[in-house]
Every structure is written in structure tokens, then in C-alpha cells.
């Protein structure tokens, strides 16, 4: 016998049947037999079997009753019920409450029973495999969550310290004291920080279940403008928000979407433009919100328009991460939003978004 010996417990009050079963199958399986449910239970306590066959008609405890009793204590072994033709009621009961895999009528046919045991074992095995896989995935998931948490803190904390030092250097008037080195350090640090933030956004967008709360667009947009226009004070914002009714949606994803688009509008300006403009128009309706974000920046080349939402797409002229718009699109997909873009070098770029109001 090889390593994958199938252990079968057969319970029947007729000893002849037990003998016959052993005679037919002892070469294929490791067989345990019991004359009653009580005896069967004792065997289960000591041996882990994969398949249980029980006769329905037994004094004291019937096969179905036995299966019902062990449903919670021994949920894993696959169950086969042996029964006469007429026991329709027992069968219904067995299927509804005893969690049986198959029933076999007596007298059994050796080949049929053999196949049933083999199939029952396969069912047992897939159940266990699936459970192991689920446990494994849960563990991986848990580790990933902790990993992300440590990215958001452990990995970022020293970077942020370095950024703090650069700020100090500026405050002490030493920023230009070493040629352009401090500036380069600042650029690198900001870039790394940007990647960490985008990675987290992407991950959170994938993992987090949508949670709908009230969204106040006026507050959200003014917070985001304050956050991203920090570096560029001579930018002019025309914000036009009409919100006469409550809007409910996924606040986290909406913030990610608007944040990425607003920061792009600020970032990709023409250097020569004296009158840098970003126009944000938001109109809340009962069924959806319409958002338009327009800038008079450098614009997007026509042949690039189709690719801008792809992961890691970057154009040669501007130095993005290739993640911002990809994340915007992914986040919109999760909340059934839509996005359209039009752009040319004269009028700049306009993104139009609709997001359903789920109130």
C-alpha cells in the first residue's frame, strides 16, 4: 500500500456485511468497522478517517442520526449512507441534515461502492486542500497588510526625517551652500515619497471595501488645493461647486481621484505661462456628480491620450511616475465612475468625471 492509503470507517449492525466489506476492499483501503454508532464514535476519537460509510437501519442510532451527531465534532470525513430502496424519508433527512455525499442501495455493487469511496476521498481531499489554501491566503493577506503598514510608517519615517533636514538647511540659509546637491537630495526624497504614497494608494484602492459616507465637495476640494498648491503659489484656481443636496460615495476613493487630478493640473503647467489656471467645476445631482477639471497647462499629445491611464505610462517630456492616472482609473472602476479626457496644447487639458450618488 502506498502513502495515500484511504482510511474508511464502516458502521453496520449486521456483522456479515462488515465481513463482506472487508473481504472485498481490504486490499484497497485501511478499513475500520463498527457494529454500532457508539462504537463508530470511539474509532473516530482515535483514528482520523477520510470516508465514513454508515448503514441507515441500525437499532438505537440510525445512520442519519449518527451523521447528524458528528456534523460539528467531525466535519471533515466524507459520508456515504447505505440504505434500502424504500427509505425515501431517511434519504431526504440525510441530504438535508446529515451532510452526506452519496447514498448507496443495499445490497451494494462492489464496483459502484469502490468508485463512490474513491470519489468521496477526492471530495475530502479537495475540502482539506481548499481549507489549507484559504488559511495560507489569509496568512499572506495578513502579512501583506502588515507590510503595507510598515511601508506607510517604518519605510517612510526615515525618508521624512531626511526631508525635514532639507527644510532645516533651507531655514538656515544653507540650501545653496553646496552647489546643487541639496536641491538634488530634495528632488530624490520627494520622488521617493511620491512613489511610496502612490503605492499605498494603489494598494488601498485594491484592498479596501467601498464605504459610502457623505461627501462635502466644497471642503474636499479646498483641502486638496491647499495640500497640493503648497509648492506653487502663483497658480489661479477657479472653483465652481454646486452642491444643493447630499452626496454619498466612497470618500477615500473620491479623494484619491480628485487629489491625483488636481495635483497633475498643478504639476504639468507650462513654465512660460504667466497666467496659470486650474478650473474645477463640480455639480452634484440626485443620481450622480459631474466633475470637470481643466488646466491651461502643457496638454497631452493626441497619440498619448489613449495610453495615459495605463500603468507606468510616462511621456518623455514630463517626469511623472506613470501611476497617478492609472490609480485614478482603477479607483473609478471600483466605484462605477467614468472618465473622459480631451486635450490640446492651446486650451490645455480637461478631465470629465461622473460618479454615481449612492444615497
Amino acid at each position: 500500500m502506498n502513502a495515500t492509503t484511504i482510511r474508511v470507517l464502516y458502521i453496520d449492525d449486521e456483522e456479515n456485511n462488515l465481513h463482506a466489506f472487508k473481504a472485498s476492499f481490504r486490499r484497497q483501503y485501511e478499513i475500520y468497522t463498527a457494529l454500532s454508532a457508539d462504537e463508530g464514535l470511539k474509532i473516530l476519537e482515535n483514528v482520523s478517517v477520510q470516508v465514513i460509510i454508515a448503514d441507515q437501519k441500525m437499532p438505537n442510532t440510525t445512520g442519519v442520526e449518527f451523521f447528524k451527531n458528528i456534523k460539528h465534532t467531525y466535519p471533515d470525513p466524507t459520508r456515504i449512507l447505505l440504505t434500502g430502496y424504500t427509505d425515501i424519508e431517511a434519504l431526504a433527512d440525510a441530504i438535508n441534515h446529515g451532510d452526506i455525499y452519496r447514498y448507496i442501495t443495499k445490497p451494494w455493487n462492489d464496483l459502484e461502492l469502490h468508485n463512490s469511496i474513491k470519489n468521496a476521498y477526492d471530495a475530502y481531499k479537495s475540502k482539506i486542500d481548499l481549507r489549507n489554501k484559504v488559511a495560507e491566503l489569509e496568512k499572506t493577506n495578513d502579512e501583506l497588510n502588515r507590510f503595507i503598514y510598515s511601508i506607510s510608517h517604518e519605510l517612510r519615517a526615515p525618508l521624512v526625517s531626511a526631508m525635514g533636514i532639507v527644510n532645516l538647511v533651507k531655514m538656515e540659509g544653507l540650501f545653496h551652500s553646496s552647489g546643487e546637491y541639496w536641491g538634488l537630495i530634495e528632488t530624490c526624497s520627494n520622488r521617493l515619497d511620491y512613489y511610496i504614497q502612490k503605492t499605498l494608494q494603489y494598494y488601498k484602492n485594491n484592498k479596501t471595501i467601498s464605504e459610502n459616507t457623505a461627501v462635502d465637495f466644497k471642503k474636499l476640494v479646498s483641502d486638496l488645493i491647499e495640500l497640493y498648491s503648497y509648492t506653487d503659489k502663483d497658480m489661479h484656481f477657479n472653483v465652481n461647486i454646486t452642491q444643493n443636496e447630499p452626496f454619498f460615495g466612497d470618500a477615500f476613493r473620491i479623494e484619491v481621484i480628485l487629489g491625483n487630478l488636481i495635483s497633475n493640473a498643478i504639476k504639468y503647467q507650462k513654465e512660460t505661462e504667466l497666467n496659470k489656471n486650474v478650473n474645477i467645476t463640480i455639480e452634484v445631482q440626485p443620481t450622480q456628480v459631474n466633475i470637470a477639471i481643466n488646466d491651461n497647462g502643457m496638454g497631452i499629445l493626441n497619440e498619448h491620450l489613449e495610453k495615459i491611464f495605463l500603468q507606468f505610462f510616462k511621456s518623455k517630456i514630463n517626469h511623472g511616475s506613470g501611476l497617478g492616472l492609472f490609480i485614478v482609473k482603477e479607483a473609478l472602476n471600483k466605484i462605477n465612475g467614468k472618465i473622459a479626457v480631451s486635450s490640446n496644447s492651446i486650451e490645455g487639458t480637461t478631465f470629465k468625471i461622473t460618479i454615481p450618488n449612492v444615497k
Partner: protein
Amino acid sequence: MLSKYKRVMLIDDNEVDLKINSKIITISKLFDEIILCQSGEEALNYLSRNLREEDKLPDFILLDIQMPEMDGFEFLEIFKRLPSPITEKCIVAILSSTLDFGDIKKAEANPHVIRLFKKPLFPKELEEVLAKYL
């Protein structure tokens, strides 16, 4: 030279950040005196030791979240049970590099925290908040 406000307490397990942030506060002349604590315990000890000495208590506390043993939230739990002269006098803001949504939500929901500053600390941001609360 006299600064705008008297005393600030920095609580952070990270020595580098303590150094950076105290330097930023010194240069921007926001406080006369800076109390540095490397852990929540150290800060609590200082506060309870100087319970009755008005001129030793900080007006403002900048608290880090992730610290070993006692984190920022645990510190706040004990802090809020300190006698009222302290809890009334000392205004607490969090200063953290966290991007974790849970941490941010928790900090914003805490009634004893007036503001969550993200590292790196910008003196201008700090100044605006101080003008509002002190």
C-alpha cells in the same frame, strides 16, 4: 530674544526627529523653551513631577504616534486622566509620518488632539495652528 510662546514639549522615540524638530522650532522662534522626551513615559513623568509648577508645564505638546511600548494613543489615554491644570493648559497635536488611514482617523477622532501634523514639520503650518489655539 523672546519668542511668541513659552514652552513646547516634543515626544518622539526617534532621536533624529527630535533633533530636527527642535531645531526647526528654535530657528522659527516659536517657543522659548523646548522639552524633549524620548517616550510617553518620560513625558508623563515630567508632567506629574511638575504638576503644580505652572512655569514648567508646556503650553503645547507635539506627540508622535508610533513609539515602542507606549504609543501616542496610549499616552493620550493616560494624559486625559491627569489633573485639570495640566490637561487644560497643555494643548496636544500629533506629529507623525503615518499615511495609515486607521491612524489618521483615530487621531482626528480623539477629542484631545487639536490637529494632526504630518512630518516633515513646516513652521508655517505650526504657526497658524498656534495662533488659533494659544
